[in-house]
């Protein structure tokens, strides 16, 4: 099953290396990975899309938690918002094609961010399924390039990803 996992990490050098290395070493299947900073200095947030059975997912979480620089791991099974940014450069030969692509753009609420003589760049955000359908819809027109960021996620409502509260003297 596909899972989206958020990981809060200290943004030290090589922390990404530790995480991807962990996936490679333990044979976990990593579909996408997106990283960015947070509002808190020194902390980054990573979104991982992973597939596997419950046991694998349990190990993924536990092994991530073993890393010293990992502060918090959440598997988004609760209601959450999932988004992915996608840029598609599509070939447009003539006016007819341009209009057809424009129809798709409107249907998906995508934006045109670059216009050239024979191509357009469209920008879309949405969950990964929406992005998939968008790319498929554009495919007949001649896709020149696709760039997807990988999914990111955030829980709905009050729940927040923050430092583990539990403290125990060591």
């Amino acid at each position, binding site marked *: 099953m596909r899972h989206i996992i958020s990981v809060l990490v*200290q943004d030290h050098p090589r922390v990404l*290396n530790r995480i991807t290395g962990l996936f490679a070493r333990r044979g976990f299947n990593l579909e996408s990975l997106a990283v960015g900073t947070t509002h808190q200095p020194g902390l980054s947030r990573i979104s991982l899309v992973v597939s596997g059975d419950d046991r694998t997912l349990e190990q993924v979480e536990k092994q991530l938690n073993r*890393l*010293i620089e990992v502060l918090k791991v959440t598997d988004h099974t609760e209601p959450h918002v999932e988004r992915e940014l996608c840029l598609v450069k599509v070939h447009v030969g003539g006016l007819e094609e341009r209009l057809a692509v424009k129809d798709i753009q409107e249907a998906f609420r995508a934006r045109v961010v670059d216009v050239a003589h024979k191509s357009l760049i469209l920008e879309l955000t949405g969950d990964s399924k929406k992005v998939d359908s968008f790319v498929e819809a554009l495919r007949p027109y001649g896709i020149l390039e696709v760039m997807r960021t990988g999914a990111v996620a955030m829980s709905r409502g009050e729940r927040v990803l923050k*430092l583990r509260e*539990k403290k*125990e003297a*060591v």
Partner: protein
Amino acid sequence: MKGAEALLKALEREGVEVIFGHPGGAIMPTYDALYDSPLRHILVRHEQGGVHAATGYARASGRVGVVMATSGPGALNLVTGLADAMMDSTPVVAITGNVPRALIGTDAFQEADVTGVTMPITKHNYLVQDVNDLPRIVKEAFHIASTGRPGPVLIDIPKDVQLAEFTGELDAKLDLPGYKPTLKGHPKQIERALDALEKAERPVLMVGGGAQHAHAELLAFAEKTGLPVITTLMGLGAFPGNHPLWLGMPGMHGTVAANRAIHHADVILALGLRFDDRVTGKVSRFAPHAHTIIHVDIDPAEIGKVVRTHIPIVGDSRLVLKEMLKGAKPLRLAAWWRELEEWRTRYPLRIKPKPHLQSQEVIRAFHEATGGNAIVTTGVGQHQMFAAQFFPVTRPRSFLTSGGLGTMGVGLPFAIGAQIARPGELVLDFDGDGSFQMTLQELATVVKYKLPVKVVILNNGYLGMVRQWQDLFHARRYSEVYLADSNPDFARLAEAYGLKGVRVERKEDLRRGVEAVLNADGPVVAEFKVYHEEGVFPMIPAGGAAEDMIVEDPREKEEVGA
């Protein structure tokens, strides 16, 4: 004060007394500072010997072992030892020099991405970028190495950082917001565990290396409940090997009683062990009658990793046992013990009388002569299993062997580390002719520091364990395992290094040989020429289950279903 000096002062503050190491270009500023430092340095002949010695020191003392090496080749020579320490959860701090910061990433002379290389085989590692971070990093490294599930931590320090002027504070605070091991077991789970044990008819207590420090609580708990105790290879010594509750070691070369007990158990309490495949055999057939497996481990990731756990308890085995002890009651296990006793007396570890000298006899002779009163180290191979079988240790931290990684060559450096950690004790390295030759240059270290270690080489002229498998599973095609045609004369080799050499070739000289080793004042290398085609039995073939146990050499066939 230079960074190198600050580093050594920070090490002193961690209570470090001894560093094993080998100098080189990129670590020279630190060796220069060492010249004026009260820290004791043990010069090894190869960095691998250094990291194994630090591991042996840690295992024998319960403290953090420290090893130091230069950049590139020096640091890379630590790799095997770090992986070994990682697999066996041993607290080791490795300090390596690196090329100056400005040269990092340029493929400079003796440069290697050591933090990259060691990432999967250390609990954590650091590349020091700012000299003023040194005290904090050292403090964190020791904290990480020695708490929670112990493990190796590497600190890589560029040469110019070692030379930079230190202007920071030596008093440093930990900054590890993501690291908080759970020490105390959950009270509800502990209650459930006690309840399950009380209702059990055929319970067993399985103990691993994670309970070496919990020996007092373990003894009290076992004696109070009357539970049969099984110790894994890494758990040997955590429970006295001469205790009536002890059934021996489980797994591939475990005792019949231990393996059968697990096979028939209804409740298993596993303490500080990770269900290694050498213990479980085929997991789907492991402990088929156990309706409840209670797993106590400080590392949550170990719980449920291999076998299904019904009552998980995350915590330190000693603290969990302490809590369990409060609610523990004597269990009514008379019927169960009658069965266990039957297996134990019917299938003891045996040495079949043979005309030629056998490894098992040599080990047993040393056990008798010392009363088991020694720290035993081993290499890896047949001799390792024979030592585990025939030298039951009674005290914790007294059987030092490479369990998880199975690293040949650890015997001698482990012995060096153990002898330095516990100078007054007898340290016996049971080694194989193959294993010993992987690190034999450390004899020089033994001589240099006048360490009275006794190396007992059980020379069968083969890579014996590989030969045994070829015998059983590869139609006796002995591919590249023969050593006898090119082995050195080990006694003369010892003499060349300036130690006493002993050679025993005949059965009738066994006792005299043992005495010569034990009565020698200083270090000894003794070579016992043993039967060349001995096999280790009992044996559960790889991927097999307890039911597939072969008790004796198939050439003298006896198989025992569980």
